[in-house]
């Protein structure tokens, strides 16, 4: 079991901006690994991130990050790095100056600060632009220099608000690999993203938010499993005899809906009993000689979960 010192815990946390609701009665316990915050604009994702990094104080409830209360700001900021959505930078500084200066503010000597800053810059692939003023950077470069700043002090938890925005495909792949390496090292990586297929790729768990409330949290599969009654799981099967599989699926595979592909080489079945359906496929192979090429869940992903919970894809990039 994960000890409290390794968790990010929200206990009945609410945040109101005057009369307006930011988040309400959030109770969560996040374990190390990659957690993705998902939800439409105004769902409360950034508020949750600002709360866990101490930039906002909760109206009610308490937040502990790796055992540190978020009201204990100095301790909190030793262990947390934050790459916020804000796209402004202090004027007149180069990327290297920015990171080295804030490392010096953290107490590093000037020389150490520049060495550590350079290592972070190398990790984010910004070495060529590091000595240029940030004012001349592209959106993607600014994202990467923010990421370098957030990770430069080797935090144990890193919070990233839309970190993939503005990155080209190569830089995205490198950033994702970096996040995965953080998670492999036992860090917390909290990411908000609108890009659902990337959420699928990288997230160990999701926290889905809507209107300031957490509407679901956990592994994508487990969240999807909880929705089985209202939204039967759809399974894609590519095989040579889809009609035989379809008939069996209705008779003893627990299927409630089957669509045979137009090319006659596969089907999609909707079922509330996945195990029973998989057992049926076994029998179809063994008893009826069906040759199966592919079996895969068709809506066992963040996008589908999001659509079912929100009733929309929210205009998100999918």
């Amino acid at each position, binding site marked *: 079991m994960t000890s409290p010192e390794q968790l990010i815990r929200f206990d009945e946390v609410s945040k109101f*901006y005057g009369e307006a609701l930011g988040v309400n009665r959030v109770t969560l316990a996040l374990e190390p690994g990659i957690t993705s915050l998902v939800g439409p604009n105004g769902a409360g994702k950034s508020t949750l991130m*600002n709360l866990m*990094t*101490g*930039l*906002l*104080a909760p109206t009610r409830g308490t937040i502990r990050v790796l055992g540190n209360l978020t009201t204990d*700001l*100095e*301790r*909190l*900021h*030793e262990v*947390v*790095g*934050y790459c*916020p959505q*804000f*796209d*402004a*930078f*202090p*004027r*007149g*500084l180069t990327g290297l*100056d*920015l990171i080295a*200066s*804030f490392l*010096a*503010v*953290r*107490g590093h000597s000037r020389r150490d600060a520049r060495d550590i800053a350079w290592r972070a810059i190398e990790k984010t692939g910004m070495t060529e632009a590091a000595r240029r003023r940030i004012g001349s950077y592209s959106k993607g470069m600014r994202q990467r220099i923010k990421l370098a*700043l957030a990770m430069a002090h080797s935090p144990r938890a890193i919070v990233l608000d839309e970190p993939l925005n503005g990155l080209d495909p190569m830089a995205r792949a490198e950033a994702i690999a970096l996040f995965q390496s953080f998670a492999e090292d036992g860090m917390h990586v909290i990411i908000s993203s609108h890009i659902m297929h990337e959420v699928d790729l990288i997230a160990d768990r999701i926290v889905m938010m809507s209107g300031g409330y957490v509407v679901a949290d956990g592994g994508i599969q487990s969240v999807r499993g909880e929705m089985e009654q209202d939204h039967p799981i759809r399974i894609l099967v590519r095989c040579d005899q889809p009609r035989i599989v379809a008939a069996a699926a209705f008779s003893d595979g627990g299927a409630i809906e089957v669509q045979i592909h137009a090319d006659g080489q596969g089907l999609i079945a909707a079922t509330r009993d996945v195990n029973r359906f998989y057992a049926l496929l076994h029998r179809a192979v063994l008893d009826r000689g069906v040759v199966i090429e592919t079996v895969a869940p068709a809506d066992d992903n963040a996008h589908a979960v999001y659509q079912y919970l929100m009733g929309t894809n929210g205009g998100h990039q999918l």
Partner: protein
Amino acid sequence: MSPVRQITAIALLELRRYLAARRWIGVYLLAALPVLLLLLAAVRPGRSAPMERVYAGVFEVYTLRFAIFVSCGVVFSHLIRGEMMEKTLHFYLLTPVRREILMAGKYLAALAATAGLFGLSTIASYFALYFAPGPDPGLLIRYLGIVILACATYGAVFTLIGVVSRNAALPGLILLGWETFSSLLPGTLQQLSVTHYLQPLLPLPTERGPFAIVTDAPSPAWSIPGLLVFSLLVVAVAGWRIRRIEIRYGAD
């Protein structure tokens, strides 16, 4: 972590940002103007007043009561509020630095910048005296001391204003009015102005006008430490206030 080291790092970063920013061009012009005025006065043929007296008038009326006041208003009220408006305050608030220390570092950097700038202006304009006979070098030291005290005190006041008020212009104008006309007020109220403590330190104070209410001037032994302690307390209050600051850029 050593607070001194952190304050130094913050102050150095801030000073770097001052040098890079173009928005202070107005402050540079305010500081440069007396140099020009005094040079013109010094070389003007048929000058009647002694040069020390001309210098004292320009220093008190323009530099001390207007240029330093306005410049401190612009620079110090920007320390926190300006960063909120530019959406850059979070860079500091995400470091493990006590907010009082952040406030102290930013205040000291602004003090170094304004006192340095107006110190240079004072030195440069003082050289205009050398166009006239008999300047007293001891006067320059006194003027420089007054520049530092004025920047420290007005700076502290505007630092607090920048923390508690969204727009420093209105409180700044009220304060300018108070400082300008406080000599017309009863003695007890005069004691609530910074000018009351700075004016007696001037080597050659100017006439205060026919409507001024004359009061006992505080001695330098009282006013100098008094102003420094007042500045320290005001900056401490500003530091305490920013402990509760939240980053809600949209709301500012």
